[in-house]
């Protein structure tokens, strides 16, 4: 049953002690958490930073002259600097805090593209987008007559930059593409896509919710126009994400939400808006979460990111090797260089039944359509089971997964 062990490719010791939740048991079994692509667990460093801030420095930001408001404002703006450094933005002014990746993409839809799109204009996107990078564009189709142009992926789940290029026409106003598929693990050739789109004068939005976790992102090198990230997949808290956008785009965008903090001046007759990024951050922002996000990015950056990537790739390869024994199990997504996400279908077994049996073994996986129904349709499946690997997972976790799958087959097959 155990996979033929190849030598470990990376000298990376999974920092399990940093994640207290990994010590708990589920249904009497040790937790094996393989659902980090849905949301990653939080290291103590994040939880402690948030607690220390909330108990020692908390107040609202940008509006008080008192000591704590100053301290909180400083911490909040330091988080913006931290995100900018993490993505290698030119400046922190190119980072807008949002409540997550979804809101970041919706912000581009409302504040940027809806002002620039007319009936018959096109948005190019791929069939492997998450619903959060589909539905905001459907809104523009419904409301303004935009046309969605879908780019297919190859049978192995890889995306050809030339296929994207071929879909960009004279009426294309935006290319919206994931950096890493949440179902297939495919890493897209983002830099080549951006170059092709820019050659035709078309901006590119990348959904980096998975990509930023597993790839070292350099938005300047990619030259991407918009890059959306979410905190909770980056080992940070829920309730905070960010949009990177080139300064010129942000300056030309109208606000999305109206309220406090985003104005320059309000009178009875008119309102003028603050400069970005404040223009897009109406209301009290997620302040404690911003502090948590700083800690999360510090935490992730404290590792050799390439070693983390090699470790996750090792887990993926180890799992693939072990699954070869199961001729009733079909992996979906095998693009070269893909990230550590493993989606599969089991003959005669529904993903939810498989996930229930794995759950009782303490193994947490995702089962369903993964908010990517066009992709499910592309591969002719209603749902898949997905195991996703993070820096805290081990080969022993994979062994437990394999044992659980064998048990599921025994019960249901």
């Amino acid at each position, binding site marked *: 049953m155990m996979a033929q062990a190849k030598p470990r490719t990376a000298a990376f010791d999974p920092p399990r002690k940093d994640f207290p939740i990994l010590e708990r048991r589920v*249904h009497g079994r040790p937790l094996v958490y393989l659902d980090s692509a849905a949301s990653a667990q939080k290291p103590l460093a994040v939880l402690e930073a948030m607690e220390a801030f909330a108990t020692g420095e908390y107040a609202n930001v940008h509006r008080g002259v008192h000591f704590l408001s100053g301290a909180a404002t400083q911490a909040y703006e330091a988080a913006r600097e931290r995100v900018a450094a993490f993505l290698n933005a030119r400046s922190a002014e190119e980072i807008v805090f949002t409540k997550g990746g979804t809101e970041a993409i919706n912000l581009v839809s409302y504040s940027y593209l809806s002002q620039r799109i007319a009936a018959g204009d096109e948005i190019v996107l791929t069939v492997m987008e998450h619903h959060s990078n589909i539905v905001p564009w459907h809104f523009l189709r419904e409301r303004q007559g935009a046309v969605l142009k879908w780019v297919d992926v190859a049978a192995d789940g890889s995306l050809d930059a030339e296929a994207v290029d071929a879909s960009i026409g004279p009426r294309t106003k935006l290319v919206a593409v994931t950096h890493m598929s949440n179902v297939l693990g495919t890493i897209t050739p983002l830099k080549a896509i951006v170059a092709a789109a820019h050659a035709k004068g078309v901006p590119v939005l990348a959904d980096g919710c998975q990509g930023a976790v597993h790839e070292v992102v350099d938005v300047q090198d990619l030259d991407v126009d918009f890059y959306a990230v979410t905190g909770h997949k980056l080992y940070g808290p829920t309730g905070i994400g960010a949009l990177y956008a080139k300064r010129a785009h942000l300056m030309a965008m109208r606000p999305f939400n109206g309220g406090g903090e985003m104005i320059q001046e309000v009178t009875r007759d008119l309102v003028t808006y603050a400069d970005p990024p404040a223009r897009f951050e109406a209301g009290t922002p997620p302040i404690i979460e911003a502090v948590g996000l700083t800690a999360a990015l510090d935490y992730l950056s404290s590792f050799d990111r390439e070693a983390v990537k090699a470790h996750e790739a090792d887990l993926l390869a180890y799992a693939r090797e072990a699954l070869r024994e199961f001729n009733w199990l079909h992996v979906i997504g095998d693009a070269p260089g893909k990230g550590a996400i493993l989606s599969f279908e089991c003959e005669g077994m*529904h993903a*939810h039944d498989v996930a*229930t*049996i794995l759950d*009782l073994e303490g193994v947490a996986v995702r089962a369903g*359509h993964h908010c990517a129904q066009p992709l499910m349709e592309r591969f002719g499946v*209603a*749902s898949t089971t997905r195991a996703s690997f993070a820096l805290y997972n081990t080969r022993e976790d994979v062994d437990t997964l394999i044992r659980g799958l064998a048990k599921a087959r025994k019960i249901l097959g």
Partner: protein
Amino acid sequence: MTIDDSLRELYQEVILDHSRHPRHFGPLEHATHNGEGYNPLCGDRVKVHLAVDGEGRIADIKFEGRGCAISQASASLMTDMLAGRTLAEAEKLMDGFLHLVKGEDAGSLSEDDHERLNVMAGVSAFPMRVKCATLAWHTMKSALEGGTAAKTE
């Protein structure tokens, strides 16, 4: 009860048999009521068709769709149980079932019905799966109430 006991109860042989060999599966010509149910959580769909005769009795009943073992078995069992019943009896049975799978008192069920439906009672130990078991039943209720679409989320 141990975890393995719960698992054995959830996936007991009767359920696996219903899911592998669903009864009353397929379309129904001359249906008087149709319903379509959808579980947005997993993307599973089920269609139910029934023919109610002049005396208010379910003369024929069918279901179509695909889904997990629990949802397929539950739909198959439902069609088995409802065939030949009056609408009033069907309603009582459906209400009883919906209580049973949530682990609530299903007192409105006759002893015999309770015994036959009890194979699904193991679902109550798996709150995340109750919706799988109830999808076809909610769909049937909405078909009888004249609606067409039900969903379990």
